[in-house]
């Protein structure tokens, strides 16, 4: 299943903050920041169970992350990825001349990839080194 016309936001979560202080190469970091949170009603349309990998695609890239239902909703039409390596694969690098990329408000689409493997931070960023 897939969903189109979503808006992607990124930002701090306390779990992501704790995980980054505990080691960025850990599974804890993947569980904290390699995720995409959905509005409850939007998630039903995906027809999968929470934790199923999903591919998030924007005009700026794509990334595979674990799906989850938001505790900070309702926010229909909005998805959220915590700040960090996963979110930054799909954010808008345009700074509008002020130096700060547009980390929030990208148009996004999501598709379920049931057998997908979510990379850890080092593997994910390593792909940029290889590229």
């Amino acid at each position: 299943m897939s969903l189109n016309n979503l808006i992607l936001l990124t930002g701090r979560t306390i779990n992501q903050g704790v995980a980054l202080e505990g080691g960025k190469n850990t599974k804890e970091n993947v569980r904290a920041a390699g995720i995409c949170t959905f509005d409850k009603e939007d998630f039903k349309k995906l027809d999968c169970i929470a934790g199923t990998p999903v591919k998030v695609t924007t005009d700026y890239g794509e990334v595979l992350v674990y799906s989850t239902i938001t505790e900070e909703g309702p926010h229909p039409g909005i998805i959220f990825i915590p700040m960090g390596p996963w979110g930054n694969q799909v954010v808008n690098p345009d700074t509008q001349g002020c130096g700060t990329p547009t980390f929030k408000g990208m148009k996004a689409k999501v598709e379920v990839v049931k057998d997908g493997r979510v990379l850890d931070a080092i593997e994910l960023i390593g792909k940029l080194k290889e590229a």
Partner: protein
Amino acid sequence: MSQKKIITHHDVLCPFCGTLCDDLEVDVADNEVVEMRNSCQIGTKKFFSSNPSGHRYLKPQIKEKGSFRDATWDEALDKAADILLKAKRPLLYGFSSTECEAQNVGVELAEYLRAILDNTASVCHGPSLLAIQDVGAPLSTLGEYKNRADLVIFWGSNPVHAHPRHLSRYSDYVRGYFRKDGRNDRFIVVVDPRKTHTAQIADLYIQVKPNEDYELLNAIRAVLRGVELDAKEVSGVPMEEIKKLVEILKKCHFGVIFFGMGLTQSVSHHRNVDTAICLTRELNDHTKFLLTPMRGHYNVAGANQVFTWTTGYAYSIDFSRGYGRYNPGEFSSVDLLMKDEVDATLIVASDPASNFPAGAVRNMFKHPIIAIEPHHTPTSVYADVILPPAFAGIECEGTAYRMDKVPLRLRKVKEAPEECLPDREILERLLEKVKEKEGK
């Protein structure tokens, strides 16, 4: 079995977020943090992460044939100096999670190398600095808000997650001199596209559409001036709700807007903050109103202060002509990296590989990287030289500026392990090495 002697340190500052809590109690035994009191989840984890672990660098490292090997300080500094001196457009980036004394040496090094100098404000509150330069800002210290504010607005900011003790120390639950009943004496408003955990404990939540904060702020300004807008809603917020909010704003005794990345990292960036400042200024025709940016890193405000008093500019500074030039958008790290202008990077206390957009990281990785970084991070793992630092505020002293620009002294509670040195000393030795190689 002998009991380890526990030493308790009181009134320790937390080197994590801009709230810079100064009431932590840290128990240390055998040079390891064993217990924390008063700190939030993230602060606690930061102190514990200074203990020996598999992901901490204890000796300088040099990458050879794709893998790291231990090196002496002299070897590692020699290699780092070579990289910086060979580069035509080196970038010195980070600085927000270290002490002011180290930042000061970083400025000197950047000027000597004719490098680009930037701090993490570049990707967070840089737009706030631009807006403040444009229109000024009615700011205050956090103590004033704690003691006086009866209306607190969090706009595009989620302190429950990003500044976990802000609410209990300054803005919500805390008892103030004129707010003796704490939470009951304050009206909390949250404006955010998501009903965040902060919004869930607010008295009024306003759900703004993503990227439309600018329109909503201006609609509030218009209604405040008595303009009747020909619209049923603005940015997804019904006009009735906007009018209700304006009445609440006008009636308070002392209001404050704490704003975060929701304004600076959305479309319009500094113009959003510019308008929020103008709204705050205009509210002072009716009552007392101030605002304050919710700074992220514990000493990003200090980086802006130190850079400003030494170069005249807060971030995004280009020394290529031998003197500092300032132009965010041109000399800011992400813009430079997206254009692939940078040919070597020195990272101080930061992890841009995790926090920059992918395109910028891809270009950064094409060129040598030197990382002054205590832990394995996506930046340090792909760096060429690692210079292992002591944790500022845990393993060495220094000065840090709270989000309201109040300077506080960081404490040392334990010794740095093995060969780790304070950031300041690493940068001083690197500067010395660079000068030595140039025969100066």
